[in-house]
């Protein structure tokens, strides 16, 4: 059996549980385990209860589990909230200066105080205790700490060393073995998006902060020089979207990122991008709505909204990744497609992919490159909306010699001048765009839009997308059934879906929303969903829970 471990570390906001979770994940990753970190926090800056749940498994992408092996408690609330998740034989590591509990107590506050450390360093003491407790050598721990803790590293190391020395591993306790796999790179979904966009040629990223998309902005802002990508925060989402349009018109690759409420403010611009045929790349990272909802928790309830993101008739690319690798690949792919087809493209991700941390294989970075858009040859008179057989009109950017580049949100003639009288011309321009939409459909059919996992011969199929897909994959493998994951959702990859669902006698669709939005999409394309599994308590499916719900 695949080896797999789950660890929760929790505390109040400000106690550093998130950082600690990342360090623990790196320890496991170093030993060759695949990683997923689920982050749980509220919309507040101090206090409350935050926790990170690290799942580490031999090989592949992993999902959050119901039961855990180790619990690290920076405060009492952590024990109260998570003790019942411990497996039989699971161990609690706790700050014995604050908590009385059975398990491995570490006098974290005392150690920190003795060594004149900062209060937050208690989390390092706990990590060191865990490392010792599960048989990780000091060398490995030291290396990871050095990588992760730039500031105050000496003090942190001495805290760690002391805790490491003091803790005695439990008798007969688990010792984590190295696996045969090489360590991956740990990265959140949002970081992968930033890099995917950059790799496909992003020049400027525009955003107005909104959880859970904000960290794309933060990541890029911190690396502007290194990556050569401008990261611009503007006065509101409408400005953001309009600026992205202006920049694309002027010849730069731009993208924007937001969550549902901010995306709502951009819908008028999505329609503009379609009409003016200006590439527009948006990240919509879902959180639990409607409206402000539960802003730091996940949900997959913006699918139908995102699929119909503006007034008028138009096609667009929409893809929903389930992990960091897919986030990287599809953000890059969509950026290229937006420019290739001069069209809106939307990466529809969700909180637990955006802010979750995954181990990825660095080969994935080779899967994206900047693909050049269709540029005007320079011959003849330039017409922004030249009617061609393919429906694609070559681009030119302002500054191009002998080109007058006229982009227009009104219906227009080939030269880009408004047209409202000549009804044939109006129809012809729509036909040009319809031809392009047909090409986009072909592209969707040709691309690897749908993934299949589990028992490919099973007639029971669970369909899941985005963050839920990982749980569904694992559950399907466990139950010996088939799992189908649509990633590109618009244009809908009908042929691939037909193939994937061919012969299915029972289609189950699992998602974290309350109405079954993917099931609705499937119905629209002729696939009858026999059973909907819906979860809307602001939590990600654990693999066990989903498996149970599939079976029942």
């Amino acid at each position, binding site marked *: 059996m695949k080896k797999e471990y789950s660890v929760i570390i929790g505390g109040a906001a400000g106690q550093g549980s998130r950082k600690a979770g990342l360090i623990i994940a790196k320890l496991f990753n170093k030993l060759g385990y695949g990683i997923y970190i689920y982050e749980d926090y509220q919309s507040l800056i101090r206090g409350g209860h935050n926790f990170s749940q690290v799942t580490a498994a031999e090989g592949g992408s992993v999902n959050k589990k119901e039961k855990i092996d180790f619990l690290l408690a920076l405060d009492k609330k952590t024990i109260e909230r998570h003790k019942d998740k411990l497996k039989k034989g699971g161990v609690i590591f706790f700050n014995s200066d604050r908590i009385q509990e059975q398990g491995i107590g570490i006098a974290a506050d005392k150690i920190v105080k003795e060594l004149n450390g900062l209060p937050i360093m208690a989390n390092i003491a706990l990590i060191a205790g865990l490392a010792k407790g599960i048989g990780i050598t000091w060398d490995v721990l030291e290396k990871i700490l050095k990588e992760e803790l730039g500031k105050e590293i000496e003090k942190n190391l001495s805290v760690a060393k002391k805790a490491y020395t003091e803790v005695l591993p439990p008798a007969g306790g688990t010792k984590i073995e190295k696996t045969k796999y090489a360590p991956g790179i740990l990265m959140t979904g949002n970081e992968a998006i930033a890099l995917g966009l950059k790799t496909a040629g992003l020049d400027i990223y525009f955003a107005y902060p909104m959880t859970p998309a904000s960290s794309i902005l933060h990541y890029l802002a911190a690396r502007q020089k290194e990556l050569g*990508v401008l990261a611009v925060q503007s006065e509101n989402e409408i400005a953001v979207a309009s600026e992205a349009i*202006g920049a694309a018109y002027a010849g730069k690759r731009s993208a924007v990122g937001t969550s549902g409420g901010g995306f709502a403010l951009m819908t008028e611009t999505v329609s503009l991008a379609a009409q003016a045929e200006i590439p527009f790349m948006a990240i919509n990272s879902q959180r639990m709505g409607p409206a402000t909802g539960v802003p730091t928790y996940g949900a997959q309830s913006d699918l139908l909204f995102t699929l119909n993101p503006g007034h008028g008739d138009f096609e667009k690319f929409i893809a929903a990744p389930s992990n960091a690798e897919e986030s990287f690949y599809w953000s890059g792919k969509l950026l290229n497609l937006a420019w290739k087809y001069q069209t809106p493209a939307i990466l529809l991700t969700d909180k637990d992919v955006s802010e979750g941390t995954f181990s990825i294989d660095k080969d994935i970075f080779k899967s994206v490159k900047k693909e050049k858009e269709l540029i005007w040859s320079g011959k003849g008179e330039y017409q922004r909306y030249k009617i061609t057989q393919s429906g694609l009109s070559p681009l030119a950017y*302002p500054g191009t010699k002998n080109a007058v580049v006229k982009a227009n949100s009104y219906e227009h003639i080939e030269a880009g001048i408004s047209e409202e009288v000549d009804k044939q011309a109006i129809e012809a321009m729509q036909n040009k765009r319809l031809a392009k939409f047909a090409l986009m459909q072909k592209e969707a059919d040709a691309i690897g839009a749908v993934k299949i996992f589990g028992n490919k011969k099973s007639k029971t199929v669970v369909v899941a997308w985005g963050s839920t897909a990982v749980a569904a994959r694992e559950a399907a493998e466990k139950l010996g059934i088939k799992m189908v994951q649509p990633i590109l959702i618009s244009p809908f990859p009908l042929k691939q879906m037909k193939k994937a669902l061919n012969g299915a006698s029972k289609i189950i669709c699992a998602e974290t929303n309350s109405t079954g939005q993917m099931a609705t999409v499937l119905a629209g394309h002729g696939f009858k969903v026999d059973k909907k599994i819906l979860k809307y308590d602001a939590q990600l499916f654990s693999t066990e829970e989903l498996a149970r719900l599939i079976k029942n």
Partner: protein
Amino acid sequence: MEKQTNNNLDTKSPNTWCPGCGNFGILTAFKQAVDEIIKNGFDKEKIVVVGDIGCNSKIADYLNLNSIVGLHGRSIATAEGVKLANSGLKVFVFIGDGAGLDEGVSHLVHAAKRNSNIKVILHNNRLFALTTGQFTAVSPKGLKSVSTPFGSIEEPINPLKLMLSSDAGFIARGYSAKLEQLKNLILAADKHKGFAFIEVLQPCVSFFNNIEFYNERVYEAENKNRTEAEALELINQWDYADAEKIPLGIIFQKQRPVFEEDILKLIVK
């Protein structure tokens, strides 16, 4: 009137402005300014016109220049994107009072504040003309319009004052009937390094014909450096209700760090 340019600035688009509309004057003055800009050695291909939505923005169709016409109220933000993408371009925004001071006032305030190097020409006909004349933020109180048949009850805002408070580095007022001055204001705005705002008094002959009113009151204010307080005093000569005189010209000018220059430094290695 539209054919006096020597740089092939005209298009084949039929002009659908009402005969006598102030927009014609703005078009002519702008073409003359562009002629001069080109004469001074700037490439025509590097000029970009950003249109909004409204009578005013039809100007994009009438100019054989690069142009982007986007959404109502969003031209200023669009223009900022254009300029940021390629700061070698000269970017002129044509926008109405409804778009600039109602729908999209957030962008006007913020573009001025961050000093984006775009030139905003606000066609102030003091109502939503293209949608048949409803009142805007600069309509005089009491304006009878289709949406205020008993007279609007709101007092107008003063756009120059709003720009002054938003830290705009170049604030001017022109009049569509004073072509030469308007052309010069456009050229001065172009020379100014940073955000420039030109309000153009533009009579709408169909819905609010105030040509007489303007003709009797406008005068050219002295061209001089003014402190903020002096500029405010000059601006206060007219509060968009009645007044004895209405100053035209450059009202305020100040050099400030230019947004695009500063932000681009962040990625220069």
